[in-house]
């Protein structure tokens, strides 16, 4: 049987065996947490607590207004030491609420839950998701209630659960599919109700056949839910590639999945929805894969949001002596960290610790026009040209060649024999173009 997939892409080594067989471990509560007031795409939250105040786990500490908004909760019970700027894993200092653990740990569940979610209205459920502070846990951190509430006029017919986890090293979603299949199923049913769709696909790369079997078993009596094993290829988990593989629908340039009638949610997000709606649990913790060749005990850890990388890494036996690079997220799209003081945020799918073996600087040659990047780009772009035009500042040509369609998946730079930092150059070009657009709009 040939497995479904998308065109192009690359085949990085998987490195998943480091942690794929490690059941999710719950980390003991950290002694303090740093909770950023901005953890989602959209307006930052304003704090609703003060320095010195005692808070309970699950208590709302930040709210944001506007349509694209979310909620931030205290993730441990204790005293607010300070609210000020601290380093954030995305490379900026942002305001964070620093809570020191104090007193008995106590969870405040969400209020006004329906007796049975089956009887709740769509609006009620969306409101719970907003109040639970759920955002896309796959890395994009887009507020989930917004994604589940497509604008009028867009008809959605399919819901897809993204269980690809195509980034090398990461295994958190894999473990959740194995260990929390019932919650995942509940989450799917809740989302299907909210979206009013009649079919769901769970896309899983074929390197996780045990998860495919587990979920087939769990969804046996639901004919509208289909588990689809997919070819192991990066970036199979990119939304557009996933929709292409499963439905053969192509999201148009600049478009969103809902333009082709689809909503995609990641495994962790779907489970978080089930936990919020059925048990009133706000998003205060998540599963993070701590892995790499420079961590002593690779693990999948259930950890409170706001726990510092340092504490989490210590829980995993600490770094080895030759640790050279710490990445939040996977090695293809993740962000390198300079400090271990940064906290786990809602979008932290993994922490990959690499030794100096993987960080040797490679010589950068001029582009030899080999076309590897062209053959790899899942968005059908010409990365070599985009990077070149971005580098020399020819933003018009770069835009004509579709630079804004780039999903920054890294496939191009992965295969470039000249080791040109293609993604970095393209990213800068995109930023400059978006900046110009914003300016010309504001005039």
């Amino acid at each position, binding site marked *: 049987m040939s497995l479904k997939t998308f065109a192009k892409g*690359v085949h*990085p*080594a998987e490195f998943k065996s480091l942690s794929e067989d490690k059941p999710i471990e719950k980390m003991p509560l*950290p002694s303090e947490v740093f909770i950023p007031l901005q953890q989602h795409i959209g307006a930052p939250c304003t704090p609703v607590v003060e320095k010195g105040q005692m808070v309970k786990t699950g208590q709302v500490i930040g709210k944001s207004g506007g349509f694209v908004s979310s909620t931030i909760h205290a993730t441990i019970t204790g005293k607010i030491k300070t609210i000020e700027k601290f380093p954030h894993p995305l*490379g*900026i200092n942002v305001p964070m609420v620093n809570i020191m653990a104090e007193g008995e740990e106590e969870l405040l569940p969400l209020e006004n839950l329906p007796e049975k979610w089956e009887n709740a209205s769509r609006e009620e459920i969306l409101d719970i998701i907003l109040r639970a502070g759920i955002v896309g846990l796959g890395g994009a951190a887009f507020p989930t209630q917004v994604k589940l509430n497509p604008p009028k006029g867009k008809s959605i017919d399919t819901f897809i659960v993204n269980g690809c986890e195509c980034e090398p090293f990461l295994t958190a979603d894999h473990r959740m599919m194995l260990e929390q299949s019932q919650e995942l199923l509940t989450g799917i049913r809740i989302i299907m109700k909210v979206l009013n769709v009649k079919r769901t696909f769970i896309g899983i790369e074929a390197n996780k056949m045990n998860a495919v079997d587990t979920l087939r078993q769990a969804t046996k009596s639901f004919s509208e839910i289909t588990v689809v094993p997919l070819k192991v290829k990066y970036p199979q988990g990119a939304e*557009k590639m996933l929709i*292409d593989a499963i439905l053969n629908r*192509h*999201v*148009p340039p600049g*478009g969103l999945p809902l333009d*082709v*009638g689809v909503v995609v949610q990641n495994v962790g997000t779907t489970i978080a929805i089930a936990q919020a709606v059925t048990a009133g649990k706000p998003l205060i913790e998540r599963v993070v894969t701590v892995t790499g060749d420079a961590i002593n005990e690779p693990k999948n850890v259930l950890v409170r949001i706001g726990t*510092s990388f*340092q504490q989490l890494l*210590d829980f995993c036996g600490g*770094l080895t002596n030759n640790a050279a*690079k710490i990445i939040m997220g996977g*090695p*293809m*799209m993740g*962000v*390198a960290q*300079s*400090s271990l*003081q940064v906290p786990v945020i809602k979008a932290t799918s993994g922490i*990959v610790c690499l030794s100096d073996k*993987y*960080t040797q*600087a*490679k*010589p950068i*040659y*001029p582009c*030899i*026009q*080999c*076309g590897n990047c*062209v053959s790899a780009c*899942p968005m*059908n*772009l*010409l990365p*070599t040209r985009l990077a070149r035009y971005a580098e020399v500042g020819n933003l018009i040509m770069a835009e004509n060649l579709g630079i804004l*369609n780039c999903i920054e998946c*890294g496939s191009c*730079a*992965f*295969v*470039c*024999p*000249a080791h040109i*930092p293609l993604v*970095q150059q393209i*990213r*800068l070009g995109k*930023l*400059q173009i978006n*900046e110009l657009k914003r300016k010309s709009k504001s005039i």
Partner: protein
Amino acid sequence: MEEKIQKVPAGESQMPKVAPAKTSESPSKPEKRAFILSSSPHIQAEEDVAKIMRAVVYALLPTAVFGIYFFGWRALVMMLVGIAAAVLTEALLNLVQKKPQTISDGSAVVTGLLLVLTLPPSLPYWMIIVGAFVAIFIGKQLFGGLGYNIFNPALLGRAFLQASFPIPMTTWTMPRTIDAITTATPLGSFKFEKTLTPYLNLFMGNVGGCVGETSALAIIIGGLFLLYKKYADWRIPVSYLTTVAIFGSLFWLINPAKYPDPIFHLFSGGLMLGAFFMATDMVTTPVTPKGSWIFGIGAGIILVIIRLFGGLPEGVMYSILLMNAFTPLINRYTRPKFFGEAKHV
């Protein structure tokens, strides 16, 4: 604007740099280390320009060995002279222009070797040096070095030699003879005397011709290795050779007495070497898959026209150089459709 860019995730560092790790304020023991900051992706395939160039040299080894077998130790000396001249030229030009040294990328070795493989076995050494110099200087460094050149440097060097020294460049010796006995190439004897060379000789290379162009067998072995390693785009040899075969057959069917058959076309002259090693040069051929097809088909048509109707018996060199000139244009017009651009639901 600068400031904004600075604030962006992972775009912040131009080059990998080492930032001191800040002391953690957490009660667990602080980790005082420096971690490397660089843009994603953080892992790369084991690909490298120098590695590709080395693979091309390996792929040329069978051809070189057959060349030495047929044309003697002089062929080996020719190769060494060509490689040395190409590498030295590049090294000196870099020195003079105060540019970083680039010879370690191995591309000059490839150019020098390829050039010699397309030269007659009796060509004087100094002419080889001139050819290698022109190949590197005009063919590559003048354009800005590796990656920026439009024409295949080895072929450009050869074209220069052909124009400057037409007689030595068309003086052929019989393979495996002690004294150079002047002979004709299979293409030449067909063109001017209408005699066909036996196929087996063509295939094995036991015919008059350039140092590395006579043995189709050796070239195909190396070429398949390159295709297997994905260091050459299979579309080019496939489309180039198929076009020559089809287009050549057309004329042969029209008048078998006047025009050679397609097998003769395929295995004679520099076609095999050109198709597997020259037309697949990454720098000077299209980056798009569709572009590769166009390149091969175009080169095939041009080749047959030159061979059948031009004044020269051979046209591989010009067919490839001409298509090199069209490559930027081909790239522009074969941009793949953006994902989702063509197909709307």
